[in-house]
């Protein structure tokens, strides 16, 4: 997978769009897949499913707590339910239900949170999910997936269906830069090394994977060989790849569209502390809520871009 060719920024579908399409495709051959919606089907893209399979689509109204526990009931009777909403709503308003009625009895429910991060844009902080990794990772037994592009999302949906147990999939609103060629296969829980390098490792997820690749290119021009890892599986985390990166490159940057204190960066740091301590720099949302703006304008303003990732890499290297 790792290449040295410069990354060419090209946009594919939004991961929410890819989710909606993948779900329909999977449901053609799997009659057990059902969907629960809380009045956001046109945004989460489960309206595709609703159109194709109206009998397997359940409108819950704007009532996420009921939707999550209802999904658990469907799962306990053998269905494979996907409950979808904005990530900011399904994980917060449904959290207690996810804890007690899904995670604790290990129910086979699939939870999809769209419009994650700050790149939702103009709607502003009430709709932005910058704590969803923290919440989902706090649920024992949950898989937490964060696909970077449409190809990875299709794989994530297939994993979720095949896996017996609760899964959270994080999806985004804007069109996502293409990282993978169609048909690329992934191994659950295994980081993808997109770029080889021995000077520093850029650990990224979601929209920040493309930024990490662009950062690696600018670092290469300075003679710095940056390894890039796509962490599509936040939990279980590929601690082996993280530890190996620390051993072989000696410094890391973690980049994510999430609060820096409680997301992937925290999990990577824990893995490093267990296996191979190394300097780490963090790119993400600092201790605050964002604001309205265009998705690109917000990513620029809050420093979730390749130049900031590259600068963090230089800082991390300097701390070796």
């Amino acid at each position, binding site marked *: 997978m790792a290449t040295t060719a410069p990354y060419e920024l090209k946009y594919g579908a939004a991961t929410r769009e890819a989710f909606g399409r993948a779900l329909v495709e999977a449901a053609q051959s799997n009659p057990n897949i*059902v969907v629960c919606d809380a009045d956001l089907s046109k945004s989460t893209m489960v309206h595709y499913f609703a159109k194709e399979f109206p*009998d*397997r689509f*359940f*409108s*819950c*109204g704007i*009532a996420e*707590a*009921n939707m*999550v*526990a*209802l*999904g*658990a*009931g*469907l*799962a*306990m*009777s*053998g*269905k494979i*339910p996907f409950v979808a909403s904005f990530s900011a709503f399904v994980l917060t308003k449904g959290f*207690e*239900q996810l*804890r*007690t*009625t899904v995670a*604790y*009895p*290990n129910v086979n429910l699939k939870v999809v949170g769209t419009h994650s991060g700050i790149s939702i844009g103009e709607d502003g902080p009430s709709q932005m999910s910058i704590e969803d990794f923290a919440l989902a990772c706090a649920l024992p037994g949950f898989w937490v997936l964060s696909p970077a592009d449409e190809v990875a999302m299709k794989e994530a949906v297939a994993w979720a269906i095949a896996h017996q147990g609760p899964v959270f999939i994080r999806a985004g609103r804007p069109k996502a830069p293409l990282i993978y060629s169609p048909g690329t296969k992934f191994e659950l829980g295994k980081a993808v090394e997109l770029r080889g390098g021995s000077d520093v490792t850029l650990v990224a997820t979601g929209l920040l994977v493309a930024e990490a690749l662009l950062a690696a290119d600018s670092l290469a021009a300075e003679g710095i060989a940056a390894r890039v890892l796509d962490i599509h599986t936040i939990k279980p985390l590929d601690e082996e790849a993280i530890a190996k990166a620390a051993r072989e490159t000696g410094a890391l940057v973690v980049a994510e569209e999430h609060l820096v204190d409680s997301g992937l960066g925290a999990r990577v740091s824990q893995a490093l502390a267990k296996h191979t301590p190394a300097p780490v720099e963090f790119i993400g949302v600092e201790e605050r809520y964002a604001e309205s703006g265009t998705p690109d304008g917000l990513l620029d303003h809050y420093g979730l871009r390749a130049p900031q990732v590259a600068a963090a890499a230089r800082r991390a290297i300097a701390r070796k």
Partner: protein
Amino acid sequence: MHKTSSPEDLARIAKQIRRHIVEMTGAAKSGHPGGSLSAVEIVTVLYWDVMNHDPADPKKEDRDRFILSKGHAAPVLYAAMAECGYTPVETLKTLRQLGSIYQGHPDIRFIPSLEASTGSLGQGLSLALGMGLAARLNRSTSRTYVMLGDGEIQEGQIWEAAMFGAYHRIDNVVAIVDYNKLQLDGFVKDIMELEPLAEKWRAFGWHVIELDGHNIPAVQAALAEAAATKGKPTVMIAHTIKGKGVSFMENNPKFHGVPPTPEEVQLALKELA
């Protein structure tokens, strides 16, 4: 287990379940006897008369399901399931001990024949409606019964689920409110009044049956009426007495979450002889 529709037989079984509840919570030195005793007749009629279930084949697909949403009343469910043959009667008194299958609240990890792990109030109705939808999709005759506490329905999620059940016409689900008028801190009316309760459920689109939850023929008749009601879900508002069957526990708020002392256990067992 032998199924029976005889009110006399069912009353005998109910008395045995009450004895277990008193002994279990007494032995555990903790637990919720009052709200277990108020639910005895309903649970007994469901398990011995009404529900399609088989302790020898607990996961058969077309079984009827029972969810104790008011999970703190676990002793009544454990006693019934043990007497049915799902779990051992001999170890009922290990209730709440480390390693016991009889956990403080129903836990499907320890008793796989349970339909749900409960204990956090407000969630069982949603679960039941999910199971009802699944049965409908499967064209199964399976019906789901869910017992709610009266205090429990102060939870907002109950009313989200109530809207959902009526809107989707889920007529294979029956909610049963154990309306014993007491909750942890005292009388329901002094904490958060529910009345007019029947009108609330009717306004939400449910078929409502009010009954005396300790009158076995009344419980049987209500469950039959629920089964015959099509196109909407049914709620049975069962007027009950907290601590029912033991004179000094009846209507006594203390016995929501406090078990009987050893002396009180002996007194109670005499009354339940």
